[in-house]
């Protein structure tokens, strides 16, 4: 079923919308949460919560991409859940991803007037737009979908070392871009 049709089901308050959405994008979104948290069960719970939120927000929302819409909610829920965990239980890819993303944090924001935190994603968008499709997909797969480095390397037929280099270079590029745009990384959510 097309996304627009599923959205229409939500707007008409037809509960079939939930099952259609789950069938179409539930798997990939649950995988994202499960990867981040290192737990299938936690991933399932995040998906369930996210489906509930989608039901409560459409209408009034009318998202163009349901995959992105559901995925963003699931991802935020997973990160929230990870934050709430005790240090002893913080397994999953979030630990690796945040360690890598430290490379992206500007050593200091530009001396220009800094952008507000909610512009961070917009700045990242602009930077993503400058990349080749291959690099852009690689970055998003790693840091949005949470794919493992060895999985990505295998999928591209390169060694993990080579892939890690490319990711390092991309992170360095993002860092430069954030610095140039005066972006600071804020605690508030986008």
């Amino acid at each position, binding site marked *: 079923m097309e996304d627009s049709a599923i959205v229409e089901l939500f707007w008409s308050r037809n509960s079939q919308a939930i099952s259609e959405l789950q069938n179409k994008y539930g798997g990939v979104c649950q995988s994202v949460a499960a990867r981040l948290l290192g737990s299938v069960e936690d991933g399932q719970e995040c998906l369930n919560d996210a489906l509930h939120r989608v039901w409560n927000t459409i209408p009034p929302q009318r998202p163009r991409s349901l*995959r992105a819409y559901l995925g963003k909610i699931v991802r935020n829920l997973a990160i929230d859940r990870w934050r709430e965990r005790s240090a002893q239980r913080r397994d999953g890819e979030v630990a690796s991803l945040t360690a890598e993303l430290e490379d992206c944090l500007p050593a200091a924001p530009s001396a220009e007037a800094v952008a507000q935190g909610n512009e961070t994603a917009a700045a990242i968008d602009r930077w993503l737009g400058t990349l080749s499709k291959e690099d852009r997909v690689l970055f998003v797969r790693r840091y949005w979908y949470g794919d493992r480095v060895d999985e990505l390397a295998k999928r591209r037929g390169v060694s993990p070392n080579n892939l890690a280099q490319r990711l390092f270079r991309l992170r360095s590029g993002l860092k430069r871009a954030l*610095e140039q745009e005066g972006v600071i990384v804020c*605690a508030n959510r986008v």
Partner: protein
Amino acid sequence: MREQSLNLLAQLGGIDEQYIDEAGEDIPAKKKVHWLRWAALAACLAVVIVGGGILTGVIPGLPIGGVNPSAGGSGVDPAADGPSTFMSYAGPVFPLTLREENDAIMAERNVTLDFAPWIRTWWSNEDEANSRNGLTEEERQEVLARYNEWFPEGGRWQSSSDILVTDSYTLTNTSDQDQKLTVLYPFAGGLYNLGNVRPTLRLDGVALDTALHSGVGAAVSPEGGGDVLSHADCWEDYRDALADGTYLRNALKGCPDLSGTKVTVYEFTDPWGPEKDDEAGLPNPSILAAFHQDVEHSRVLSVGFNGGYYGWDTGEMKLEFSIPRPGERDYAFRLIVVGEDIQDLVTQGYASGGGWDGGDPIEAGVTVTRHEADLEEVLRQTAWDIYGNWDADFVPGVDFETYYGLLKSWLVTDGPLSDAGRYGGGALEENIVLAQARVFWLEAEVTVPAGGSVELTASMRKEASCDFYCAHTKNQGVYGYDLTTRLGSNLHCAAQAATLEDRGQIVIVRQNYGFDLENGVKTVPLTEEEYYLEVKRAPEG
């Protein structure tokens, strides 16, 4: 783990949906859930490492603590007296020291803090497009079109928050004999930014040849708070790391010598198998190596392997790598066994990765050779295999010997050959030496004639400290530059002074130097142990 990187991970969630959808089409050829296995194994590994102490007595290790739980916070109210505690802390400017204390040498120090990099320069969209290497003309035009859309005025003003620091010493020889000195000039940084922050030393205006000494990343807090420098947020963290001189002594001692440790090496060469054929649904095949490891008495380092299954409770290990496709760069596939040799090594080809999960066996193979070697020798070769695969501009300013030395230090203090062994999986590509924060020292030889003086100058870019929070701190837009006058130094300094070249770019938010821009006080004497200068950009006009 820093809170702000978690924030960045969260904010990445808000990227444009077109990019999410685009990447969503990049679906694995064969869906597997390997992460579960890895996550479970990581948990098991932690238990093994804590309980095992596998290589104690074979290779010396240093105790490593946990992550400093206080790191990353913005704990000081900017309105209060005293310096801020920055979330991203660049470290202070340190004073020169001598390898051997010398009572005949008296110094005067003059530091200049120059805000020239803050001056805004125009960066046109053409400049932006032309700065991107390796683009076709069509791609360059795409970049240009995007930037013309974002910056319709044709470009943007930009500046850096780095400053230029000139740290000058007049060294006077009060004796009647020439004094040959080995000077050590410290600076904060990491391999990742070494090319940007490494100072240049000059003697009476002539550049000196210098040797680089690198602090080992595992500077452990006296309170047991873990690697101080990787989580430093104020100058006191550097003080703690350098206080007793151990960190410097370790840096001067150089990297550990691992020669004399005999290891068993397995080389995997000439892997073969069916070629990848997307149209036929044939993914790139992989080779899996399965073996038994006595986990109590051996460690296995690997290079080239993509993933693995680690049965720490049973000793059953399975590592695999993708068979390189034609035209790919040569790469080493190697296991280095430290301690008891592995047993029952067998290899098997699989249609794709994840052979340990019961994948599809295929006709594929690899030549395996076994030989004994010295750890130092084989590790050097392996490090070269990794380093040699880097592009030339990957980490500017980092030579192989520096990288290799720090890799060895990491291995025995923090990595898979240490008791801490957090990376016990043994994949050498997963080392973290590039990202670790350190103090480096530049060493140079200087002769001061009897009764005479020389001028020794260190010139460098100094990155700013700052706070990333915008929602919960008053330090938005505040940049800090710290300086220490005595920390880690045995140089007898008769006087120190600092000069501010503000270039009309800044407003001072807080400081303890005593600069007074309104009244033209830009040079001040330094008598305290530590100085801080925290500034904001001056309003336009």
